[in-house]
């Protein structure tokens, strides 16, 4: 660790408590992975609720999931996978110092994230019009199961928390876009792009599980 001249030659993004850029990058990334672990366990609680109730009321899930439109669920899966691809391309652009490519890929990602939320909005509104609300507010008569509201409580909690993550992701992408336009990122420093990318891919992975578990039961 012969970095006696580090202070004179250190890049602007390097914080003084790191030996070099690589160590700073690896530390940030590891911190993000630890956050993602807490996210997995956060959603894990809801997956646990899903599994417990599915074991108790298997017929309920088969009946209630007929209210979910597989086509739009599949479209949203494709939209999120597409946005994961553009995030991966954005990181690649940053790594190659192609800032224009980074900005374009961030714009496409934000567009796809909005597309996801618009489709989700119409799915929710369609259910609200039928009286499919969570818990005690449930008034829909079309499912012959006394616990139908339970399925939709779980549905709204899981997709709602996921949707909140997509909205936060949009905010983070806009933040990256503003910084990228100011010239903050380069091949030497793109840590925020990398770790926001990790977050976005996790949001994609959670939807990859939610889609078959909620929409494709029958």
């Amino acid at each position: 660790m012969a970095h006696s001249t580090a202070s004179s030659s250190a890049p602007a993004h390097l914080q003084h408590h790191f030996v070099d850029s690589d160590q700073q990058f690896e530390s940030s990334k590891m911190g993000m992975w630890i956050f993602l672990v807490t996210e997995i366990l956060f959603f894990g609680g809801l997956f646990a609720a899903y599994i417990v109730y599915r074991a108790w009321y298997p017929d309920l899930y088969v009946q209630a999931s007929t209210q979910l439109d597989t086509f739009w669920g599949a479209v949203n899966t494709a939209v999120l996978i597409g946005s994961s691809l553009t995030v991966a391309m954005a990181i690649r652009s940053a790594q190659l110092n192609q800032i224009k490519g980074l900005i374009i890929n961030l714009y496409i990602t934000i567009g796809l994230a909005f597309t996801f939320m618009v489709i989700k909005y119409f799915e929710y509104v369609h259910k609200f019009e039928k009286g499919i609300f969570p818990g005690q507010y449930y008034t829909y008569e079309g499912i012959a199961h006394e616990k139908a509201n339970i399925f939709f409580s779980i549905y709204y909690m899981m997709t709602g928390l996921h949707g909140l993550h997509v909205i936060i992701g949009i905010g983070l992408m806009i933040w990256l876009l503003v910084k990228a336009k100011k010239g903050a990122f380069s091949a030497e420093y793109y840590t925020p792009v990398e770790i926001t990318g990790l977050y976005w891919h996790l949001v994609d992975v959670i939807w990859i599980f939610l889609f078959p578990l909620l929409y494709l039961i029958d």
Partner: protein
Amino acid sequence: MSGHHISSAKFLWGIGFALFVLTFITVAVTWMHIPAPWNVVVAIGLAAIKATIVAAFFMNLYWDSKYNLMLLVMSFVFFFLMIGITLLDTLFRNDPVPAF
């Protein structure tokens, strides 16, 4: 360091294409009406394959420090522990139907 793997654009598009194909297969297998519980096994299996592809090649765990992979694996270990212990209760209740 291991953290700066740069994938080619062709490779990333290939991964994206594989995920689109697997999504189509996930939907297509439901048209075959596989009897329970195998429909759930197939659906979760396909989702797990897709998630593994995303984690390995989009989240770069394939080239990354093994420590980050361990973090992800441990999160799943503790998730399954939570599910397992919960089901040991809920699956074996004398009165399985709760008030809520």
